[in-house]
């Protein structure tokens, strides 16, 4: 036998961890600093007529009118007592006293649409940064919720006696039997859509495998000497659970959760893409792609960039999850049966 392919392979798995951590940290920073980093207000429809569907890299002069409106123009030059504005293929003359942001040659402000603009003239790049907050918050909360639910239900099943165990585990089987997207569609269609409900729905459909995992861990620990000893010492069941069982059984749950974040981001994106997740005007990457899909051929950037953002984020979290698993889980070969099945979904 060649020198342990298994251990060498595990080493390789671990080498991905720093990459995952770095990328996830960078993403989290981008989302946190969205108000500072985004060049413009993500909801501002600066000039809904001349500002819509601008391609990536478009630069426009921004004329600020006295009545508060903004006008985007290709060019704005002073000529005599007027400002010569080239907008929507026409040249118009505006009296100088109607304009707020004059400079010696034209106007002071301009807009640069790094990733283009959408159907209302909103800046795609700014919306992407703010969308990161929505997508990441939903994913993290949903994963936390499903982990909490899974630990509670799995713990109950393992410690609550055979009748409760049988009932809960059959329920888990039944729920696991159904493709996630099916369940999600049902739930999402039945309840009114709001962002916190998306979190609830995602959390409520994700706890089953956690419950199974945690139950297995607890059952394995239950008969161990240190648990029997603490029971013999007359410690209360709650104390035994929180002080002795939980800390020893939580690692696989953490590993599982770290692998699930990427998956949840994908599911949320798909749900929002189908119009059943985050609702406009809130920007989530999924509904941005949905918006873009209707004008795919004329404004490709609207669907392309949010999708790219989803992909990068999921890749980062999966790298992190993989790394965490190979570091924390001694049985890291117990591969992602469920998650690959869910990838199919």
């Amino acid at each position, binding site marked *: 036998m060649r020198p342990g392919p298994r251990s060498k*392979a595990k080493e390789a798995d671990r080498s991905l961890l720093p990459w995952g951590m770095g990328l996830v940290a960078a993403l989290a920073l981008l989302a946190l600093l969205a108000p500072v980093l985004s060049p413009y207000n993500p909801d501002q429809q600066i000039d809904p007529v001349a500002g819509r569907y601008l391609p990536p890299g478009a630069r426009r002069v921004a004329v600020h009118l006295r009545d508060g409106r903004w006008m985007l123009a290709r060019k704005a030059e002073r000529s005599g007592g007027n400002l010569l504005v080239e907008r929507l293929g026409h040249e118009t003359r505006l009296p100088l006293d109607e304009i707020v942001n004059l400079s010696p040659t034209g106007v002071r402000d301009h807009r640069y649409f790094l990733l283009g603009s959408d159907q209302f003239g909103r800046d795609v790049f700014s919306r992407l940064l703010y969308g990161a907050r929505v997508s990441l918050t939903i994913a993290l909360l949903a994963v936390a919720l499903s982990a909490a639910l899974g630990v509670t239900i799995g713990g109950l099943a393992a410690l609550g006696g055979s009748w409760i165990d049988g009932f809960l585990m059959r329920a888990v089987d039944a729920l696991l039997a159904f493709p996630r997207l099916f369940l999600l569609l049902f739930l999402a269609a039945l309840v009114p859509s709001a962002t916190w409900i998306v979190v609830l729905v995602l959390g409520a459909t994700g706890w089953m495998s956690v419950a199974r995992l945690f139950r297995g861990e607890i059952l394995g620990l239950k008969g161990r000497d240190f648990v029997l000893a603490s029971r013999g010492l007359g410690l209360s069941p709650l104390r035994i659970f929180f002080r002795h069982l939980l800390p020893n059984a939580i690692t696989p749950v953490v590993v599982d959760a770290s692998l699930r974040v990427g998956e949840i981001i994908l599911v949320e994106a798909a749900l929002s893409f189908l119009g059943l997740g985050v609702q406009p005007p809130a920007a989530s990457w999924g509904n941005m792609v949905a918006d873009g899909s209707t004008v795919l051929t004329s404004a490709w950037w609207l669907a392309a960039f949010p999708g790219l953002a989803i992909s990068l984020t999921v890749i980062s979290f999966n790298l992190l999850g993989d790394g965490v698993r190979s570091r924390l889980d001694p049985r890291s070969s117990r591969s*992602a049966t469920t998650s*690959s099945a869910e990838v199919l979904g």
Partner: protein
Amino acid sequence: MIRFIARRLLTAVLLAFLVVSATFVVLHATPGDPTNLFENPRLSRAQQERIREIYGLDQSLPRQYLDWLEAVVLHADFGTSFSHREPVMTVLGEALPNTLILGLAALLIEFGLGVPIGVLAARWAGTLKDQVLRILSLLLYSLPIFWVGLMAILLFAYRWPLLPAGNMHGIAAIGANGWWRAFDLVRHLVLPASILGISAAGAIARFVRNSLLDTLAQPFIFAARARGLSEARIMWVHALRSALGPVAQLIGLSLPFLLSGALVIEVVFSWPGVGRLVYGAVLSRDYPLLMASTAIGGVMVVVGNLAADLIHAWLDPRVRKELVNATGS
């Protein structure tokens, strides 16, 4: 063995029945009903009540449930779809083959690509090549498939118009002869099936790699090496056969996902399959259609799980023994 199968089937059927019943209750107990579908300013209250009466929506929940169950069990009648105004079985019957075509094509690509990549990665375990394949498969299962679908349409249907952007048949294929129709179908199948297949191949590859690495560390591989068998034979015959057990289980488990997994892709590519049907039914709260697809989904889960176990037992004598011993027959 037969007793084992019978027992598994019985529990599975019971499970499917429970799920379907729960779905029925949840679906009907939540506020709002399909008359929203007929919501029309010109529709009077009385007319709306009349519609509810015709579809039996004015009955009590247990009554509705028993009626539904009776029709299904005794007459195999799932009722009439609200939104399609046709028997549910007709609507589903038209969509199911389309989904199966797409799903099977995707499954072929998925395993045809995933298994060899996984084997190569295991062979090269720990080397740079393994690392490249790992990152490649991680990329594949990290992409949102609806987005990949849109980008593929953008590139291969508009930028370079090589393939159709949606639907299952072109207009030209209507009334055409068999060969032309088949060719047309394949052209329409290329994008959705390969996107579904390739995105899932990443997960399969990773699964095969890890499963193989576990197998390669086992004594019987050691023994095979000691007998002087070639590396290739050990890898492709001895190790792979044993490592494929869990993989085969994956095939069985992915059966129900063919039904729903293609949903997003069916929506993106306007593929006239079950996924798109269910999506529409959810949006319009088409109870009969939703109930029927849940029931069929349940049956597919049952069959899939059973198939997974049987394939696994067939591939791996150790599992076979375990199963038979467990049921004592």
